[in-house]
């Protein structure tokens, strides 16, 4: 039986981060686990080649991202973006839950590549160059996609009411 201890060590150390990134992309923990599992299996199949690479983390993110994009292309996984985001009044005690729902809703409304750019740059803290390498595009594309995604998020988040009274006004 081949020795896969270094693969296990790598995946165990990165699993949590990969899973959280997948959640921000998918918007659903079950789908995130599916995507992460598939990405791990792909990494394992080619591990002998991958472990020789300089930046294994970047490659792993690339595999995760492509797996997510592939999954989205499957007919039964196609998403339907809604034109209007649900905005509702909440009690202050629900604020944390509401903020979480709000950001996930706004992320889900972004086109796939812009969502990926936001997650890679603002959650995984990747530079423009690193994000371009993961997405397989130019740095200019990353900058323009980031700018457009931030414009969309900024516009959407401005309309999220701060309090229940404000929402009722």
């Amino acid at each position, binding site marked *: 039986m081949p020795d896969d201890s270094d693969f*296990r060590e790598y995946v165990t150390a990165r699993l949590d981060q990969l*899973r959280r990134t997948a959640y921000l992309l998918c918007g659903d923990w079950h789908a995130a686990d599916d995507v992460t599992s598939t990405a791990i*299996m792909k990494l394992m199949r080619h591990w002998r080649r991958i472990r020789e690479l300089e930046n294994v983390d970047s490659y792993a993110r690339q595999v995760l991202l492509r797996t997510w994009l592939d999954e989205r292309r499957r007919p039964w996984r196609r998403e339907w973006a809604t034109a209007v985001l649900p905005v509702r009044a909440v009690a202050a005690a629900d604020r944390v839950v509401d903020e*979480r729902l709000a*950001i996930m809703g706004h992320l889900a409304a972004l086109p796939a590549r812009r969502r990926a750019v936001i997650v890679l740059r*603002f959650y995984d803290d990747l530079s423009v160059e690193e994000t371009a390498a993961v997405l397989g595009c130019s740095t200019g594309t990353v900058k323009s996609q980031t700018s457009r995604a931030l414009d969309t998020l900024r516009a959407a988040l401005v309309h999220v009411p701060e309090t229940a009274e404000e929402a009722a006004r």
Partner: protein
Amino acid sequence: MNLQEMLKTAVADPPPSDIDLDDLTQRVRRRQVSTRWAVGVGGLGLAVTVAVAAAGLTTLDDGARHRPENGATQLVPRPPASADPRQELMAARLTVQLRELGPEFGVPAGTVFAVERGEWGAASDGYWYVARWSSGGVQLAIIVRRALIPQEDGCAKNGPDMSCERTEGADGSVNYVVTEGAGAAPSRQAENYRLDDTAVMVTATGGTAFTVEQLLTLAQLPGWSLVG
């Protein structure tokens, strides 16, 4: 709260993971074993078919040496090739794509893809698939190999009498077009690096019959993929 904080809040307390690393490992191993079996059985079948066909041909040609079919010129001697039956099957698949090219590329009947051992170390598995032919006085070659997309933004191929341009496709693939030498007999080349780790290089040497745009269109045909 800024965007980074919002994203970190969104994933702050994840539910327990459904991912079982042992199960995933076993699934990958099972798949690898079944793939090896399938390839082994397929290879054995292919070897028997080839042996039977070879025996049939030997009795027909009276021991005469094989010559290329009409128009299919062997331009360079082939280096030692692999005996891996999977590679022979892949070469046959690429040959099917080659046969589908239109008359503009003038591929003579009988031109096929061969498996060769890579000499530049450029193919990640050490082998490439190549078809060579001559059309209108221009020598054409298509080389298909496994290679990762180059990460650098510039062109590696540059020189005093050479121009090179790198572009990125909408699908994330990377293209290079290179022109070397001026006058009536330049050498032109187009390369297409794909997300599935397939790289296709089309070269036209010794004439101006083919533009780099034509060569790039040829290199970008989906049928050259080494996946599947």
